[in-house]
């Protein structure tokens, strides 16, 4: 965190009150009524109106006290989704825990321009155990989403006011590129995608039958050639030539407007997933210095998607 960012955070903390209060529709009407009763009491000197006014004002104060008791001691833990995709719903979760007392009518959300609208609700938080609440969120764009505050709010006890407590809790969601259909045509040299093939010979490849040999102890029984083994009366295993696997390095141009880059990332992500599912070794290079060595398998898919999610935003962590 830069010094400037730290200063900005300190400044914000200085000016943002620890709690915020918002009136509900019923609360606004209640305030108007309180004002009216107060005016009536002052105007007429009717002591019973003073009594009613006192009760109404006390209700407002009590509302503040009880709602503060609800949100004050709650500890929050953010439960981030593993691999959210842009424009697709994902679950945003929070673990809430209260050491003592109890809290009612809670809503939990992120203080964030796009994810802030996703709200989880909890009627009751008893003391002791952690309660997990989830909300369905949708991120419009790929990329890292930095989360700094979790918003806890309650309308308890009377539904007249919403007491809001923002809990500072750093976190980040890396939103992967949206799922789109892969490009219809295989990538050619003009598209900037390179392709390199090589043939490898190995004992356990997926290619043609090379030889049969006796099964050794500890070897995979799925490799047994059952018909020959039955003919010869001993367990024989199959050895095949290694299948030729393509090695593909996808090229990404990070220049241009953000929308174009997002589209390119989504298409490359779709392409990479298709290629990896076919067993290809896929890598990634970008004009912005992004580089993922070619490799195969599901973990490579995750690495490439994460790299594409960060493309144009920042360098991936070393």
């Amino acid at each position, binding site marked *: 965190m830069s010094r400037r960012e730290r200063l900005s955070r300190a400044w914000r903390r200085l000016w943002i009150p620890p709690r915020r209060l918002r009136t509900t529709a019923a609360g606004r009407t209640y305030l108007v009524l309180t004002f009216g009763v107060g005016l009536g009491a002052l105007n007429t*000197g009717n002591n*019973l109106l003073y009594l009613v006014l006192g009760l109404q004002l006390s209700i407002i104060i009590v509302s503040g006290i009880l709602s503060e008791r609800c949100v004050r001691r709650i500890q929050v833990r953010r439960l981030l989704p593993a691999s959210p995709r842009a424009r697709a719903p994902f679950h945003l979760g929070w673990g809430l825990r209260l050491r003592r007392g109890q809290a009612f009518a809670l809503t939990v959300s992120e203080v964030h321009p796009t994810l802030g609208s996703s709200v989880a609700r909890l009627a009751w938080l008893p003391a002791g155990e952690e309660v997990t609440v989830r909300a369905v969120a949708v991120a419009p764009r790929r990329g890292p989403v930095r989360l700094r505050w979790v918003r806890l709010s309650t309308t308890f006890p009377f539904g007249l006011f919403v007491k809001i407590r923002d809990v500072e809790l750093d976190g980040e969601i890396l939103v992967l590129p949206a799922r789109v259909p892969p490009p219809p045509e295989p990538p050619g040299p003009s598209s900037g995608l390179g392709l390199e093939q090589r043939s490898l010979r190995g004992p356990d490849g997926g290619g043609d039958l090379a030889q049969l040999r006796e099964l050794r102890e500890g070897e995979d029984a799925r490799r047994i050639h059952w018909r020959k083994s039955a003919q010869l009366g001993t367990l024989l295993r199959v050895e095949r030539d290694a299948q030729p696997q393509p090695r593909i390095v996808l090229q990404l141009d990070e220049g241009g407007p953000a929308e174009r880059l997002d589209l390119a990332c989504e298409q490359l992500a779709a392409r990479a997933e298709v290629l990896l599912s076919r067993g290809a070794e896929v890598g990634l290079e970008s004009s912005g210095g992004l580089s993922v060595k070619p490799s195969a398998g599901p973990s490579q898919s995750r690495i490439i998607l994460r790299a594409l999610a960060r493309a144009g935003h920042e360098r991936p962590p070393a």
Partner: protein
Amino acid sequence: MKGDRLRLALRDLAAAAAFAAMAISGQVPPWAVGLFLVALAVALVPRRPLADGRLSALALLLAVVVLYAAVVLDQLDLVVAACITAALLTAQRMLSRPSPRTTDQVHLASLLMIAGGAVLSADLLFAFCLLLYATLAVLSQGLGVVAETGGGVLPPVRRVLRPLLLGLVLAVAGALVFFVVFPRLSWNVAARRGGASLGPATVGFADGLRLGGAGLIKSNPRVVLRARLDPDPGTELLDVYWVGRRFDSFDGIQWSASDRPGRATHQVLLAPPEPGLVRQEIELLPAYGSRTLVALDTPVVFGDAQTHQTTFTVRADLLPVGGEVRLVGSSDRVTYRAFSAVEHGPALAPAGPERERSLRLPARLDPRIPALARTLSQGALNDRAVARQLERALQTDYAYTLELPGRVKDPLADFLFSRRAGHCEDFATALAVLLRARGIPARVVVGFHGGERAAGEYLVRAGDAHAWVEAEVEGHVLRLDATPPQHRSGEGTGALGWLLARWEALQIRWLDRVVDYSLADQARLAERVRWAPGQESRAGARRASADRSVLFALCGLVGALLLAALLGRAASSGDAEQLGRSLHRLLARRGRLGPAGWLDDARVEGRELAPLRASIARYREARFGRRPLAPGEGRQLLQQARRALGTLGPASASPRRHPPSGA
């Protein structure tokens, strides 16, 4: 939480309490009361027939138009019309499909009804309705807010009730504090004093006193008047006579007065004023029900009478009728001042036709009565002795009873010769007739006897109604009371009477301390609370001490709340987040935070810093590992970290400051 039905029932009952706050004033028309009760019954069944609210809303609008047309045509009071509108709106919302919105509307409309009740009524019942409304509304609204949130497991109702009841207690206490301390910047002109809350008035001095009726009034505990005396006797029970009306003509069954009314005036002087008069500030309450003013025997001056109407107070004229003073006009509540010569006794006896009337015996008098008068006064040397002897004879030879057989042909002869038992009217009539039979002018006086102290004043109940005799002896009026002394004041009627008596006393306190609370009361309260080493009287000292005790109790309560808040804050410092922040600050000061500024990469290597590492590890465990810190453990861990750092200097790398994240 299986609370939907409960919550709605609480909501509807809260609305009923709010409606009752208005209805007790007696100003809400019966049709409106009936309509609301029907709506309440339907809602409690529960049925919500107005699911589609459009038609009913239209009907409501029409009703409101009619109501306000009635106001314009001067057929209905504006406040009453507003109250009925609120009641109709509440009823319509109660019968609509339940939703958070309709629930809010019912509560807010109920609040309007409560405000309407505050304007319409000043009865003590309003306080109960207000408290009931607050309780039910708080519970209903609290349960509703929790249920409407949804998500997770709904709590058992009792878990929600606890904080709500705590809130209710705080709200009521806060309301009382606000009520007492908020400066009254305006005159109390709009409070509407309540009518007789326990039925119609009870005394009702009639134009005559007819023998043979049952003495039920003696067991009625309702308070009919309250009086502040100056000088204050200070005793708990008064042994005094409050004069109301005098009767001088007796036809054998009924007493009547033959005085003609005088001229209406603001002040009536019955006798020349003299020093040592007892000043009385008297308030005749709704239960009194008569226009005859009463004052301590013997009244000298009546004046400064005011009638308190629903919304205003006016000065009233007084009408002297012989020795009686009547109010011109009528009102449920009258206040006035009177001065009486208590010590000196009655003034000079009347002369002329009045004296003659006071000697006249009934035309058909039982011949045994004069003989009895002679027998009972045998041996007396003068009129005074005759009078006292007859009084004593009746007190000792006759019994007191309220159980009479009903009307008889000659009630006086029946009392003297058959039953030999009766109530004060019988005793007074017998004495007056016996006195007249011996040639001593006598008349019957009706009023009250006694009075009990409450809140620095004296209360007189309907049961204290009494009758006695004034006789003219040696040129002066002599008060004689033949009723046995133990039966002169009111008699209780068991638990109900006790309860009614307490209720009336409470009602008076309510009127005195709440409805009529004013800036002057606030000033007096402030004066009383002020520390004054020398109090003038023991009662004053006691009162001041009580006021100070209340103030100190309030201060103690506030102090306890503050202390609890501080302790709560101190206790919360044991939380993991607090520990994390403290450790972070400590390490930052010592320059031992890592390059990223997190506790995770703090430079805490070395054997001597092992306790510090343990503190950090425990912090992580508490914060992220679901093993919360025990109370006080955070403080210990922080001390342990401080000790470990001891006098060690900063680590070589420059520190960076990053607070730990999280709650």
